[in-house]
């Protein structure tokens, strides 16, 4: 399918959905009925999703603007033109569907490699996103996901590579490495929890310290000259940079579960299925069990939880340990895939996938099921960005800027949420009638709710 047609199709579908709802809503209002749509609209979850989508769209639009601006700035060296900007915009929105370039421009359709890679990259992000979300639900800010991820990386790789598969069956080695990684992450996460509970040290501080402790411990473990696990390094590396063997070196790898047949030629493996199952489990634990009830009670009102006889200290520690374990599971699944290698450096940096868990959780409003989608979306941006790099003269850094914008606007999703709730009114009329700019009027939420209450009594 030619690119412009593909693009138009997407646009028409989205526009007609919007148009349907608006027309149906207006009609219902006239007849004083409530439609299915209006009822659904009032649900919190729908508002949460809408606000996230709004922030994504805003981020994408700004990203496209950057592409256009880049294209129209005259430059002797750049080969950018409005034509390439148009290509770029198409790729930013739907690069994952790109199938190459035909005579009439970019062509689009189902691309198994892109899709599979998107799912592969989403796997660790889902888990770090869950890690941050679980901690948020208990009122804690887990900025320690990178450290937990690193700790798990080291333990997973050591276990997966050092246990001889000639003695232990590979499947068991895989399981031991996976659980070992989770445990390492959990320990790394539990430390800030312990400090918070017993010494009242803010978890953000201890999490950041644990991040760097993790980075340096990994450096020591895999040091090319003196590290106890230097025998796991690929000998081809330099003194300052070396790669740990892929786990396939020891015949250990996550099963593909047949996904490689659907997405031929991509890196996808069963990890994504395990990640989704874990997300569903976390959702069930938080939403359906007494344990989740306890955690959420501590998260929303620590004093009331204490008053009700819930041990808030234990809840804090367990919640941080679970958060750490989830980040650990992310690292374990990523490196157990068999086709990724861990780059050891003299100065180990913190893995970005740990920090990216924060926007993933925010974009999903901390809903474990939402995390599946927000993480997939962030990795979709990644894949789109790769396509932008391959198919147009834009360089790869532009794609990072665009995804940064979307992540940046994801922090606005709360603002959009308040607009949808009506607690913030954006007065556009005054913008056009008077010279003054748009006024944002923040209505005291409590006052409004009290007033609504008065009516209902």
């Amino acid at each position, binding site marked *: 399918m030619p690119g412009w047609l593909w693009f138009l199709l997407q646009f028409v579908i989205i526009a007609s959905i919007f148009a349907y709802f608006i027309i149906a809503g207006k009609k219902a209002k006239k007849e004083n009925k409530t439609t299915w749509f209006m009822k659904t609209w009032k649900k919190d979850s729908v508002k949460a999703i809408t606000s996230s989508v709004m922030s994504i769209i805003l981020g994408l639009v700004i990203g496209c603007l950057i592409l256009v601006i880049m294209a129209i700035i005259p430059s002797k060296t750049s080969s950018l033109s409005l034509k390439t900007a148009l290509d770029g915009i198409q790729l930013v929105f739907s690069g994952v569907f790109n199938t190459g370039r035909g005579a009439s421009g970019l062509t689009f359709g189902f691309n198994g490699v892109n899709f599979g890679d998107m799912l592969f990259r989403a796997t660790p992000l889902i888990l770090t996103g869950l890690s941050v979300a679980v901690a948020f639900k208990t009122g804690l800010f887990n900025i320690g996901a990178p450290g937990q991820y690193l700790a798990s990386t080291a333990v997973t790789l050591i276990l997966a590579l050092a246990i001889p598969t000639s003695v232990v069956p590979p499947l068991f080695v895989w399981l031991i490495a996976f659980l070992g990684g989770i445990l390492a992450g959990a320990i790394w996460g539990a430390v800030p929890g312990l400090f918070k509970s017993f010494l009242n040290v803010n978890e953000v501080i201890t999490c950041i310290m644990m991040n760097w402790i993790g980075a340096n411990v990994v450096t020591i473990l895999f040091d090319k000259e003196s590290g106890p696990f230097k025998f796991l390094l690929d000998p081809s590396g330099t003194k300052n940079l070396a790669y740990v063997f892929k786990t396939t070196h020891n015949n250990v790898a996550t099963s593909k579960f047949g996904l490689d047949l659907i997405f031929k030629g991509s890196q996808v493996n069963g990890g994504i299925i395990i990640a989704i199952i874990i997300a569903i489990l976390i959702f069930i634990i938080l939403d*359906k*069990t*007494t*344990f989740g*009830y306890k955690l*959420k*009670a501590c998260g*929303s*009102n620590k*004093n*009331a*939880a*204490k*008053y*009700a*006889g*819930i*041990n808030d200290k234990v809840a804090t520690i367990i919640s941080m340990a679970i958060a750490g374990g989830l980040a650990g599971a992310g690292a374990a699944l990523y490196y157990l895939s068999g086709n990724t290698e861990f780059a050891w450096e003299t100065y180990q940096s913190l893995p970005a996938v740990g920090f990216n868990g924060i926007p993933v959780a925010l974009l999903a409003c901390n809903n474990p099921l939402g995390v599946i989608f927000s993480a997939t979306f962030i990795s979709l941006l990644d894949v789109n960005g790769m396509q932008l790099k391959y198919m147009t003269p834009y360089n790869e850094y532009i794609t990072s800027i665009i995804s940064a914008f979307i992540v940046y606007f994801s922090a606005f999703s709360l603002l959009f949420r308040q607009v949808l709730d009506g607690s913030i009114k954006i007065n556009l009329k005054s913008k056009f009638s008077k010279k003054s700019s748009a006024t944002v*009027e923040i*209505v*005291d939420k409590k*006052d409004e*709710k*009290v*007033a*609504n*209450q*008065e*009516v*209902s*009594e």
Partner: protein
Amino acid sequence: MENYAIEMLNITKTFSGKAANDNISIQLRKGEIHALLGENGAGKSTLMSILFGLYQADSGIIKKDGEVIEIKGPKDANKYRIGMVHQHFKLVEVFTVLENIILGCETTKFGFIQKKEAKEKIKALSEEYGLNVDLDKLIENTTVGMQQRVEILKMLYRDNDILIFDEPTAVLTPQEIEDLLKIMKNLANSGKSILFITHKINEILAVADRCTVLRKGKYIGTVNISETTKSELTEMMVGRKVEFVVQKKESVPGDVILDVNNLVVAGAKKNKNSVNNVSFKVRQGEIVCIAGIDGNGQSELVYSITGLEKIKSGSVLLKGEDITNANVYRRNKLGIGHIPEDRHKYGLVLDFTLENNLVLKKFEEERFQKFKFIKRDEIREYANKLIEEFDIRSPQGPTNLARTMSGGNQQKAIIAREIDLNPELLIAVQPTRGLDVGAIEFIHKQIVAQRDLGKAVLLVSLELDEVMNLSDRILVMYEGEIVGELNPKETSVKELGLYMSGAKRNVKEGN
């Protein structure tokens, strides 16, 4: 034609189809104190929010000095010299009193704030009206009473001549209330017009000139205070006759349930204990009331009995079992029900639904969970039962967020939860704070019913009426110690006041 300072005529305001204000008119004369009386949810706050510009009326007009005006926001209200003291003060905690008063209308010279001029103006104002404040103190270090005076000075500093007081006495001690009422009279005498929103009839009788009554969003009537009585006003407000004196039988004390011995709780400052060597007993079938001025150790005493605060020395026995070092969970299981003083801080998880709040102490019971999985249907059923029994009203019933319920209904939810625990000892701390007459009557009846069922009740209250009406035995606390034990039938409010202020003491050991 009479000259009114402010007139609100035929105001109607609806929220999602329901009328919060239905054709309400109120006329404020110059220099009068005009009370606005109504239960929680009668539409008082909505009406005042319209006057202050926070909401726009759907229909109706507002006149100032006979001229129609339009108030679109607090800025407009300020322009027409309308000031408001909100129920929850709007002050910056880390600013000084002076900075709070001038905030938003600072006089500056080359960009520097001219504090000196402001100081002089405020000093003159505070002397004129008897508003004693310490200008250089930070708000966070001042008492609630002083914070309120700061709010009043804020209005006066802006030369407001129409002053709205929204439930100003809800957070004050009896002494502070007396002072406030005096100040209000001074203000009215010097020509300010005051709108006084409240549901406490005694205060209206004490200061107001006229009173407008609202009920369920409707205008009931305006009366001259000199020509009315307490019971007439109550009937107008509630729509039926209300019993002020709680009907209760003679108490029949049984076994000792709570036994507190030489209890000491450390204070925030190291050299002073907040609870000092307190001993008392509470028996089955009696209501023991701890009276005292706020901040004399009552809260800490309760927290130490319920396990929220550590005990320094002494012991607490419940039904003979030593619970001095037991955790909160154990104490709850042994039969302590606790209606906490601060319902937002301790009583409720505000972002949970009503049903989840109702099972806050019960969610681990067998009937609400199976293999640790919550049984939603059982909880819903249980919540509906309590909602009906205790008449807890909220727009969405059991799935309503606790945060969006009115204060009275939040309190009812807590009381329902605690009473349904079927506790051996019910500790109720200021259970009726900020509630209207109808709700107070209901809660008092529930507490007496618990006593008649043979439960031990420990009541902590700052309201003298409540203390005298409800209790079978009064213990007065002063500076962390119990300074007297009184029989409500043999004592008077005046005598109680003497004990509360530390002027008198009589201590019987070991009862």
